[in-house]
C-alpha cells in the first residue's frame, strides 16, 4: 500500500484504464452524432466540471454557461480527440480554456499577484473544526490567482497528476510544481495564523 494515499482517493491503474476506454467509446459515438452518448458523458462530467468551474472562476451565475460552452465543444470536436491524453484531460483542458476566457471577460488578473496573497482576515472565535478548516481553505484559495486555484483544485479535489495538470493548463510541469508550492505556502501560513488567533 502506497503511503500518503487517502483511502479511495485515486483509482487503481486497471480501473482508470477501463474508465478511459469507456469514455473513449462514448466519444467515438458522439463523433457519429449519438446524442445518448453525449448525454451520458455530460451527466458523468457535470458534477466535477461544475465543482471545478465554481472554484476557479468564482462566479456561480457563469458556471453553467461556461460548462455548457465547453461541452458544446466536446460535442462538436469529439472526432478530433486523438487519444494521446485521457478523455478527462482533454475535456478539462477545454473547460480550462473556456474558464480562462470567462475570467478575462470578468477582467480578473489571471497570473499570480503576490499582493493578493498577503491579507488573511481574522475569523470568528471558536474551535477550529473540520468544517471551519474547509471554509478557511475555500476562502484562502479564493484569494489566489486563477492559475493557483486551478492547480489546487485539480490536485486536491480531482486527483490529477501534475503532468495531467500541465496538459490541461498547457504549461510546463515545473510551472505546475512552482504554483503548487507557492499556494501551499500561503495556505500553511493562513492556517497557522488562524490557529494563533484561536489560541
Amino acid at each position, binding site marked *: 500500500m502506497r503511503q500518503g494515499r487517502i483511502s479511495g*482517493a*485515486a483509482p487503481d491503474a486497471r480501473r482508470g484504464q477501463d474508465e478511459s476506454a469507456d469514455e473513449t467509446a462514448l466519444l467515438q459515438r458522439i463523433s457519429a452524432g449519438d446524442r445518448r452518448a453525449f*448525454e451520458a458523458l*455530460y451527466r458523468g462530467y*457535470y*458534477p466535477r466540471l461544475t465543482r471545478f468551474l465554481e472554484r476557479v472562476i468564482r462566479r456561480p451565475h457563469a458556471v453553467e454557461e461556461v460548462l455548457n460552452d465547453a461541452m*458544446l465543444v466536446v460535442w462538436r470536436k469529439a472526432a478530433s480527440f486523438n487519444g494521446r491524453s485521457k478523455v478527462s484531460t482533454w475535456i478539462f483542458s477545454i473547460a480550462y480554456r473556456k474558464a480562462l476566457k470567462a475570467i478575462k471577460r470578468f477582467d480578473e488578473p489571471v497570473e499570480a499577484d503576490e499582493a493578493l496573497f498577503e491579507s488573511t482576515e481574522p475569523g470568528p472565535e471558536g474551535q477550529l473544526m473540520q468544517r471551519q478548516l474547509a471554509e478557511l481553505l475555500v476562502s484562502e484559495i479564493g484569494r489566489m490567482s486563477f492559475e493557483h486555484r486551478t492547480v489546487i483544485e485539480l490536485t486536491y479535489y480531482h486527483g490529477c497528476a501534475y503532468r495531467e495538470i500541465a496538459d490541461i493548463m498547457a504549461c510546463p510541469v515545473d510551472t505546475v510544481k512552482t504554483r503548487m508550492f507557492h499556494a501551499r505556502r500561503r495556505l500553511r501560513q493562513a492556517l497557522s495564523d488562524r490557529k494563533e488567533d484561536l489560541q
Partner: protein
Amino acid sequence: MTGRILSFAKSPHQSAQELLPWFLNGTLDADESAQVEQHLHTCAACRSELQCLRELQLAYVQDHFTPAAEAALNRLLPQLQPTAPAASRPGFGLRALAGAGAPAGLFPGWIRIALAAQFGVIFALGWAVLQPDRTASQFHVLSQAGAPAHARGDVAIVFDPAAPQREVERILRRADARVVDGPTASNSFVLAVPDGQLQSALNALRSEPLVTLAAPLETTGSP
C-alpha cells in the same frame, strides 16, 4: 576529488517537497513515489509537511456536493446539431440556434433564429408536460430526515465524507445509477436506476468501501 557533480539541479529534499501533493493523491509514477518515500524516512520536515497536506486535502474534499445535471443538460440539448455536417460549415458558431439538420444556407438568418425559438418553446412545453411523471411517486429516505418529498428515486445512498468526486462518479457509473436528488439534511443522495436493475445496483453500491449506506426506497405511494 569527491567525484560529486556540482549542478544547479534541485536537491532531493526540494524535489520531494514539491512532489508531496501528488504523492498524497497517488498519481506519481513508481520511481518518483519510491524517491519520495525514501526521502520521507530521513526527513522529519517533509513528514510533517505531508501530515499537514493530508489534513488540508481531507478538509478540502469534504467540501463537495453532487448537483443534478438534468436542468443544465436540458438547456444545452436544443443547441446540439449534427456533428459531421456542422464541422464542415463555416459560420456555425457555438451559439448557433438553427434547427437540427437544416442546411445553413437554406434559410436566411432570421428564419433560422425563428425556427430555433420555436424549437425552444416546443421543448419547454414538452418538458413541462413531462414534469408530473417525474414527481408522481413518493418514498421514504433514511427515516425521512430531510428527505426531498417530490423527487423520484430508487435508492438512498450515503458516501464516505472523504470520498473524492471522481470516485463517487465511478461508483455511480458502475451501478448504472443517476443522482436525482440530494444532498438531504442527512447527507444522503437519491439515485434512480434502470427498471429491473435495483438489486444488481444495490449489490454494486454495497460492494464499494466508500459507500456508507445504500438502501432501497419505498415507491408504493404516500406514507
